[in-house]
């Protein structure tokens, strides 16, 4: 870890709220959330559906803006940026990994990986340079023999690896993975988790949403959300097993379990 300075904080969220709608029909998706994520962390976000974890991920991913609160990403306050500026932040600092991979079916693996570089206005790269970089990235994902296959010619695990290559191509500050193993069989899921862990060991910061404990166990830290609030933030998943099971069984008393 670096010297204790603000610089080692990659994500700094203070009293974040998000309200959908107005008046009587207003839905409070996030009710004052504080999160700090340091560089190099691997954080899992858990919680039942409706807990606000998707909203949190959307705001973390600069796809949505908070109703109030502050969000500093890599030292930059992104909570007040306009749509164009947010698009720039997403392009340069965030790599998305989705549950359903979201590859463009008509493009080959390598073209899918090259896509974020096309929107990367600040790098004046030639097509050949982009191609070479994407090829290297796919090679690192173990897909050098699948570069010219279209998504429907690839297995689920392979498609997700292409998606991870795409997420990494612009050297983002953080990878946001939304249920990255949700559509995969157990073996492929373990492979993808091994890959993410390896990337993390190499210095990539990862925040991952999941609803599966055994997947969350791969992370160093688990944040648990209920009703738009963080109810648990531990350095290991094992500690929240009974919390999670309690939520699933519907017997939870939020206030009693609330730590921090």
């Amino acid at each position, binding site marked *: 870890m670096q010297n204790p300075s603000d610089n080692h904080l990659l994500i700094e969220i203070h009293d974040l709220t998000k309200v959908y709608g107005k008046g009587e029909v207003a839905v409070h998706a996030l009710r004052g959330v504080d999160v700090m994520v340091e560089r190099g962390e691997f954080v899992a976000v858990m919680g039942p559906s409706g807990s606000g974890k998707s909203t949190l991920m*959307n705001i973390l*991913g600069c*796809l*949505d803006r908070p109703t109030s609160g502050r969000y500093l990403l890599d030292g930059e306050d992104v909570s007040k940026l306009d*749509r*164009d500026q947010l*698009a*720039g932040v*997403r*392009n*340069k600092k965030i790599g*998305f990994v*989705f549950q359903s991979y*979201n590859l*463009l079916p*008509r*493009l080959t693996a390598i073209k899918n990986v090259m*896509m*974020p570089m*096309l*929107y*990367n*206005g600040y790098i004046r790269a030639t097509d050949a340079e982009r191609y070479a970089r994407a090829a290297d990235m796919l090679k690192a994902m173990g897909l050098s023999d699948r570069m010219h296959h279209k998504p429907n010619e690839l297995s689920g695990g392979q498609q997700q690896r292409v998606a991870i290559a*795409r997420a990494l191509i*612009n050297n983002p500050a953080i990878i946001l993975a939304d249920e990255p193993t949700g559509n995969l069989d157990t073996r492929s899921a373990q492979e993808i988790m091994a890959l993410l862990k390896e990337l993390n060991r190499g210095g990539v910061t990862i925040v991952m949403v999941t609803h599966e404990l055994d997947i969350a166990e791969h992370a160093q830290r688990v944040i648990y959300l209920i009703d738009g609030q963080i109810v648990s933030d531990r350095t290991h998943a094992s500690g929240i097993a009974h919390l999670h099971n309690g939520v699933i069984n519907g017997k939870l008393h939020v206030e009693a379990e609330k730590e921090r």
Partner: protein
Amino acid sequence: MSFLQTLKIAWEGLTLNKVRSFLTTLGVIIGVAAVIAMLAVSAGAEAEVADQINALGANLIMIMPSFTRGGFGTRAGPPPSLHYPDLIKIEQNVTGINGISAEQNTTQNVRTETTTLTDIPVVGTTAGFIAVHEYTVAEGRFITNEDNDRANKVIVLGYDIAKELFGDQSPVGQTVKVGSVRLTVIGVMSEKGVVGNTDYDGRVYVPITLVFKKWVNDRFNRNALRVVYVSAQSKEVMDDVMAQLNKLVMQILDTTADSPGFTLMTQDSVITMRTAATETFRNLLAWVAGISLVVGGIGIMNIMLVSVTERTKEIGLRQAIGARPRDVQLQFLLEAVLLSLIGGLIGVIAGVSGSWLFNQFGSMRTEIVWSSIPLAFGAAALVGIFFGYYPATKAAQLDPIVALRHE
């Protein structure tokens, strides 16, 4: 993202569904082809008129019966009109003219002992014909006033007719039979070819009085002349000649200035009149073409809206990886413009080749108006921008979260 990259992506979007893309452009194809073909047809018609009028000599004045006069209860009998003896009167009393002529045509079989030519145009005319048409006689002489006064049974052959009937022999002095009338050949015209619609060399010329006597005996109209052509000696005397004609013809017809019963026209005024007519026609066609372009544009807008909906998830992904609203907008706008430009290109090819084929093998003369190509092409591009703007803007305004969740 660079413009070229966006263009590439837009092109990929179009090739995704080739048949649909082609069908979408069909409206623009038809519109653009229509613009070019219609302009070619009207330009052809105009050129035809110009040729016909220019086939006549310069400084020509036409005396045309006007049909505005008359109607029930105005005067019994036929409308006032000029007859052959009036031509002589005009010729003798108006100064500054080269010649005066009128025509009465018929179609007859023309025969010698050995050869028969069927359905040959027979032009009944007067001595002034060669001055009016700036035409010359190759051999022998043309019809004279004396021939007309006596309705002499004489004939002047067009160049090709002479060749077909007599070969290399001189026809002058020979006899031909036109219909059932035996005529003596007095001359052969020089070669003139086809001008406008008229094949000068494939006709024969006889005294107009002979035509009235033998073939077109119209008692009711007392052999009225339709159009009388007067050839003025120069441009300078035109106005003077017209003034003289106006006065004299009114006197002959016994009419007054408020309803003279005839109109004097010059080549210029005829061209102006005909051009005005084709202009109206052309404006109408321009509207038709314009409407089909708009319909084509609506087709493009429709398909682009479908495409935006179908590709919502793609739009969401592009936004997630850093596409700004204007990147998305440009991508879809370029798709629409590419569609309409491709339609425009195919339309130009179809319009030009269609017009050309029609001119070569069809019954109508067409003249491709080259300036209509950039016009049609530009119109197609405008249609693409105009009708592509709304779907593209709609795509750009999609919320990335909603778009990503779209199935």
